[in-house]
């Protein structure tokens, strides 16, 4: 039977939270949480796939209303931000605190850039009378990007206005919830940045930085699938 020494006993009297789960435990916990996010978005992707298969003509028509350029810019922004956050973690792993701070700042700025582009995209939709649940117009000519009322026929096939409406419902809901996760990610990264500036993280303790990075990569991952499904399917 081992009786704890006074020093060991003092340590457990006031457990430091990292000492409970440890680095591996905290990382495992973060991955478990990421699993829930995958399933959360999985519902949306599943529903989107079902309706895409049900209304192929309408979805193809409606997607022309999305600005491929803005979508591509956002993709580049997010990929770059994934790179910068990975480099931020890489920096602190090597003890380079200042470098890490700059990379974190870059990530947060890129994230806000994403939201700015999203803002312009959404307002463009609203200006053309396209709202979640009530899409009154679509781009009818993909060369000129002219908007018009939803046609009853397109490319020789019947168009069900409901299908067009559903496309935009999915667009707003899925990019909206994704955007919310971008915002949450920004808040988490800012919290990590503050801690980094305060000197909380070192080359031998950077667990929260890494876990925040994992969350940010997930946000990027979801967009990697959102982008082609909404903007690129022809």
């Amino acid at each position, binding site marked *: 039977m*081992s009786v704890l020494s006074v020093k060991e006993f003092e340590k457990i009297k006031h457990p*430091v939270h*990292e*000492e*409970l*789960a*440890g*680095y*591996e*435990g905290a*990382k*495992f916990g973060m*991955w*478990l949480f*990421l*699993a829930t996010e*995958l*399933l959360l978005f*999985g*519902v949306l*992707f*599943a529903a989107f*796939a*079902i309706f895409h*298969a*049900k209304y*192929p003509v309408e979805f*193809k028509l409606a997607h022309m209303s999305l600005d*491929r350029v803005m979508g*591509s810019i956002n*993709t*580049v922004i997010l*990929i*770059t931000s*994934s*790179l910068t956050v*990975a*480099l931020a973690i*890489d920096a602190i*792993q*090597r003890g380079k605190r200042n470098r890490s701070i700059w990379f974190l700042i870059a990530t947060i700025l890129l994230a806000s850039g994403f939201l700015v582009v999203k803002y312009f995209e959404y307002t463009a939709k609203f200006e053309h009378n396209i709202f979640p649940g009530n899409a009154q117009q679509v781009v009818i000519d993909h060369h000129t990007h002219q908007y018009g009322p939803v046609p009853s026929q397109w490319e020789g096939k019947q168009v069900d206005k409901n299908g067009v409406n559903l496309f935009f419902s999915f667009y707003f809901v899925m990019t909206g919830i994704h955007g919310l996760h971008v915002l949450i990610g920004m808040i988490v990264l800012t919290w990590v940045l503050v801690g980094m500036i305060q000197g909380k993280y070192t080359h*031998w*303790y*950077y*667990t929260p930085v*890494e876990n925040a*990075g*994992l969350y940010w*990569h997930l946000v*990027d*991952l979801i967009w*990697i*699938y959102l*982008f*082609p*499904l909404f*903007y*690129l*399917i*022809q």
Partner: protein
Amino acid sequence: MHIPTQESRGHISPTKTYIYVGIALLVLTVITVAVSYIDFGQMAINVTIALIIATIKATLVLLYFMHLKYENKLIWSFGIFYPLVLFIIMIGMIVIDVFFRVVPK
């Protein structure tokens, strides 16, 4: 006695790895956008190609940015395998429902 310690002890990839993966992701983005301008006739083909490229990108993010390449079986199981299997079951059964209903005329 083993007490989990505070120390972060992850695998440290060379910095260059992140740069290379980042460049690869950007290149793949260019490819996927370019390919989307080509009309393959059937939408299903476009969708498939787009999803394949997306999956390649996702795999790079998972393996290198998220360090999955160096993680243990538990993280692979809980983080990837179980959610993926459940997603397939969910969408699979819903497809078997929605697209095999017999609607009386």
